[in-house]
């Protein structure tokens, strides 16, 4: 939202959800929820400016135009021995890692260590690969 120029967070919800939330707040008191970074005037001004630039430069349209190329490139990684799957939401991509064949046999490297290795290798190639917990751990929560 701010292009990472300033820390800011927001919550998006449907009109129906908001109406129910408002009704509950009116009847029983505020739904007291807050983001760590919200309502700061400087961050809000930065976010408004970034959104204005995105609209002026028609960034969303550009994103839609390059999405097929992004998808093709992402899917092209599927044949790599360390990749067990890929997925994306817009230009945010996720790559699921798996042990290489040799390591799978040896069982000596956990997936978290693998993500750390890929992170380091990414730095050596001039890119930052962020890692998160395995999707399966998210599903369990």
């Amino acid at each position: 939202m701010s292009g990472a120029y300033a820390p800011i967070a927001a919550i998006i919800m449907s009109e129906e959800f908001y109406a129910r939330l408002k009704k509950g707040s009116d009847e029983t008191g505020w739904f007291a929820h807050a983001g760590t970074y919200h309502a700061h005037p400087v961050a809000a001004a930065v976010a408004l400016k970034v959104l204005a630039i995105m609209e002026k430069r028609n960034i969303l349209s550009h994103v839609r135009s390059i999405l097929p190329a992004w998808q093709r490139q992402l899917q092209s990684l599927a044949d790599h021995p360390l990749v067990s799957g890929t997925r994306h939401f817009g230009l945010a991509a996720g790559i699921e890692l798996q042990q290489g064949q040799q390591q799978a046999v040896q069982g000596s490297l956990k997936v978290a260590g693998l993500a750390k290795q890929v992170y380091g290798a990414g730095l050596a190639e001039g890119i930052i690969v962020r890692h998160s917990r395995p999707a399966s751990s998210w599903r369990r929560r």
Partner: protein
Amino acid sequence: MAPPLIITDAEIAELFARLRRALDRTLRQQSTA
């Protein structure tokens, strides 16, 4: 100077080429570990 907001197809290809090299590098590290 503001960073570019527009990424091109060529830059996407370069990004994923680097990512593949990073994966290859990791695979080699595993092989030699």
